[in-house]
């Protein structure tokens, strides 16, 4: 059974049109992550939450925002997607820093 679920699996959006990606986890984990992965590269951390505490990576573009309304759900908002934002977006969760992380299936974003 999937424990970290991302929706949708594939998302096509227009240049400049806001888009929201969602992630849910059934594991009651404290920590949730959003990563961006471009072709032939390693996943790059955008944000992470420890409970409600939000941590933004220094090089995450201002165009990217995140919300975590409750323990189970986390959203990634891209306010004005550009062609360079086309990528795979991966969500993950875990209990604490010293425990195993689990990833969702990812959302592949295309910007046209």
């Amino acid at each position, binding site marked *: 059974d999937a424990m970290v679920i991302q929706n949708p699996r594939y998302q096509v959006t227009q240049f400049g049109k806001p888009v929201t990606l969602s992630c849910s986890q059934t594991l009651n984990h404290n920590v949730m992550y959003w990563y961006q992965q471009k072709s032939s590269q390693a996943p790059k*951390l955008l944000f*992470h939450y420890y409970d409600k505490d939000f*941590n933004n990576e220094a090089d995450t573009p201002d165009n990217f925002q995140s919300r975590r309304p409750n323990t189970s759900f986390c959203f990634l908002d891209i306010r004005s997607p550009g062609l360079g934002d086309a990528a795979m977006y991966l969500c993950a969760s875990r209990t604490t820093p*010293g*425990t195993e992380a689990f990833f969702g299936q990812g959302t592949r974003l295309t910007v046209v």
Partner: protein
Amino acid sequence: GIQVEQSPPDLILQEGANSTLRCNFSDSVNNLQWFHQNPWGQLINLFYIPSGTKQNGRLSATTVATERYSLLYISSSQTTDSGVYFCAVTSSGGGNKLTFGTGTQLKVEL
């Protein structure tokens, strides 16, 4: 922040061959995981191994935390082993961050 380097970056094997993938990290860690990324992009958990040795079928992993490296062994490789292998770590002083290594692209041929 912590630096994580993997080697080799690319590897081509004949089916049935064995291989060793390496992950070097620049700081002490309290978490280390190995993942296999499938062709659809999903990251599959292989091992959670901050220290010691574990085995799962044809795969095994060893982490020597004091020397800041981990090894992933693949024996009797199969075409289904193809894909990208990542290690990911959390440094002991790095809060909650999970940092990925540079990856090893493996191709297993018949």
